[in-house]
């Protein structure tokens, strides 16, 4: 530190110079350097955020949730429920309900007719002859934020059985909460399953008996529920359940 310079105005300099000689100079330099660095950081923050383009538009496959999200016109949409709602989720401490303890297992969930971000219709019809997994997510829920990329990675690794469809339902949309809008989130994660938008009242979530986020309902090709789960299910366990669902269909 150069102790010989005497420029600048340290408010303490006059008071202390008499007793400490040149030493207060160091304090002055420290304060000056701090102020300079802070000003530079402020300028950098300003220009970085003004010039950012947020050009996250990577090549996204057609007809996926992410593709619909790129043309997002809406974050919520009306949902039509046809059929009886599923039985209430049982009181349980485990994230994956043992099928024997779940009154919904064997039930047929209602048909959901709704729309995706781009206004294209999405229909979740248990009776369409295909096994499926329906995943209910809330954009602000930290557990969903952890789970969605794990599921996408699992899909990207080619683990999804060809005879099992994935659907996501974006519910509990809160404009003033983090990670809004959900369409941006879906783009960011490159999420491929089709996404149905729930309405503000959570009609789709209620029809499926949602106990919390994230929420999984698996059903076989006959439209009967085989498994429900809620929470940050470890991806291995999720994979095992989906693979079992797929092989079940192949066998029957």
């Amino acid at each position: 530190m150069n102790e010989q310079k005497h420029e600048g105005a340290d408010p303490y300099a006059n008071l202390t110079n008499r007793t400490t000689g040149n030493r207060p100079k160091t304090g002055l330099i420290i304060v000056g350097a701090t102020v300079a660095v802070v000003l530079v950081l402020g300028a950098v923050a300003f220009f970085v955020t003004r010039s950012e383009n947020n050009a996250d538009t990577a090549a996204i496959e057609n007809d996926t949730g992410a593709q619909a999200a790129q043309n997002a016109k809406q974050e919520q949409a009306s949902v039509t429920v046809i059929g009886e709602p599923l039985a209430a989720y049982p009181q349980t401490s485990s994230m994956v309900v043992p099928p024997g303890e779940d009154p919904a297992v064997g039930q047929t969930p209602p048909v959901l007719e709704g729309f995706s971000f781009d206004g294209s219709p999405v229909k979740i019809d248990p009776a369409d002859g295909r096994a499926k997994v329906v995943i209910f997510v809330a954009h602000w829920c930290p557990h969903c934020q952890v789970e969605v990329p794990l599921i996408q990675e699992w899909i990207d690794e080619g683990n999804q059985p060809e005879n099992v469809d994935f659907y996501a339902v974006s519910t509990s949309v809160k404009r003033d909460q983090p990670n809004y809008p959900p369409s941006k989130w879906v783009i960011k994660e490159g999420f491929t399953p089709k996404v149905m938008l729930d309405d503000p009242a959570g009609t789709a979530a209620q029809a499926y008996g949602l106990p919390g986020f994230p929420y999984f309902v698996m059903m076989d090709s006959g439209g009967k529920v085989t498994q429900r789960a809620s929470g940050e299910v470890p991806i291995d366990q999720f994979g095992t359940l989906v693979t079992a669902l797929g092989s079940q269909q192949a066998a029957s």
Partner: protein
Amino acid sequence: MGLSATGTVNKAMDVDTVTLFLAMLAVLGLGFLLVCLVFSVVAVIHGSRTASKRPALPASLQPLRLGIGQVALPLAFLVALTCTVGSLYLSEVAKFPPCILCWYQRIVMYPQVIILGIAALRRDVLVKWYSVPLVLIGLAIAIYHYLIERFPSTVSFSCTDDVPCSTVWVWKFHFLSIPAMAGIGFALIAVLTLLACNVDRSAQNNSELDSAEPTNKNEDA
């Protein structure tokens, strides 16, 4: 508030600018904390070679040490002020609703502006008795808050319809969230307040510079 679409976009950009600026300040603060850590290690090693065996910085670093000690209280005040203004910006302008853990961190941080402001004016290095215990509580809350942000499943496995404390509002440089920045603020205030030394007293002890450092170091323990 009658903002046009453009107004909303500009506001989002402003919030982004401010959070980036706060994040960069936090990185700067983190750098300072690391430098302090390095110098502490230097002091311990150098001290073990002196006659007294007590931690002490080499004579070449003493002016720097005293310079910092001299401006430590005003700097600590500025850190508290930055954290307080930043937190008020995020809640009142950016409209991020503070969760309950945020409020408890505010309870510790906001009074530091008054306490350290007065202490800086009074040049009262003994304020460490009041500031340090409080900011250590704040640091503990901030660490806990950061951990449940990183590992939300340690508190629960799923979300109910209430937004939990584990929601992440700001995420910069892949490691900085609001409680992380608050935690750095608390740590900075603690270190700066402990480093503060009375210039006049140090001047009287001019010949025995080595003792100025341990005096403050020991009260740390």
